């Protein structure tokens, strides 16, 4: 009887682990994109702190409730501010962030093109 109980519990744990394999990918992806706010430069995924572990559980819960990836980010940003997300949004604060490199690329291209055009003339 005792053996049977043990086996049943064992199988439940076993199957629980197995079914989570797919969700874990999305979970990992999300937690890699979140900053551990009490650590010095680690993501939630990489950190083992209490805060990080709680966030990981929260992400798992929200995913189970049917939240989409974006919704989870928005939810956490609502609680903790933009700082928690490693992917900066494209809003009025970050126009320069995203566009300046592209601008530099175009300027570089223009300079090089000028060098070739000079030759033609």
């Amino acid at each position: 009887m005792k053996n049977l109980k043990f086996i049943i519990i064992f199988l439940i744990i076993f199957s629980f682990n197995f079914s989570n394999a797919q969700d874990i990918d999305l979970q990992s992806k999300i937690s890699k994109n979140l900053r551990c706010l009490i650590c010095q430069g680690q993501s939630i995924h990489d950190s083992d702190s209490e805060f990080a572990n709680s966030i990981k559980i929260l992400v798992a819960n929200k995913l189970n409730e049917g939240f989409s990836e974006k919704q989870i980010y928005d939810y956490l940003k609502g609680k903790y501010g933009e700082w928690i997300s490693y992917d900066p949004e494209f809003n009025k604060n970050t126009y320069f962030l995203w566009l300046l490199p592209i601008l530099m690329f175009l300027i570089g291209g223009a300079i090089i093109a000028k060098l070739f055009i000079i030759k033609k003339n």
Partner: protein
Amino acid sequence: MKFKILPIFFTIIFLIIFLIFYKGLQNPNIYTPKNNIQKNIPSFKVRIFDTTNEINSKEIFKDNQFYLMNIWASWCVPCRDEHTFLLDLNDQKNIKIIGLNYKDNNRSAKKFLKELGNPYNVILLDEDGTIAIEWGAYGVPESFLIYNKKIIKKIIGPLNENLLQEIKELIE
């Protein structure tokens, strides 16, 4: 005159960059999200400590008075230090202290309270830390001063004499 523009341009740019870095050094590097002040308290369901009962957040903070929500744990060393201030605060008439027991062990938590005293009107249970996240907390200890279902003040870290005075003044 044309070739003078470029050096002047770059000099100005670097001056601006210098000033920004200079100002950046002055800023303290502690991050406190501004959006917690005057924000509504989160709505959630939570278990009461040492029972299997659940309670809704609306019921906890329903009265028209001040509440202090304090996140604590028996394994948290600074929580011991702030406990005396909590007991002091509990003696005040117009404030109720609600505790949130964070990622703790039932026995150790009870021992903690037995040893140091229990200032809490109600103690809520946060086994995995997700309730604390609802509040936008980072860990323990943290406290929230609440009135009229809004967060008036957020305190990160343990209470001390100064903060206690501040709270006392606010709740007058």
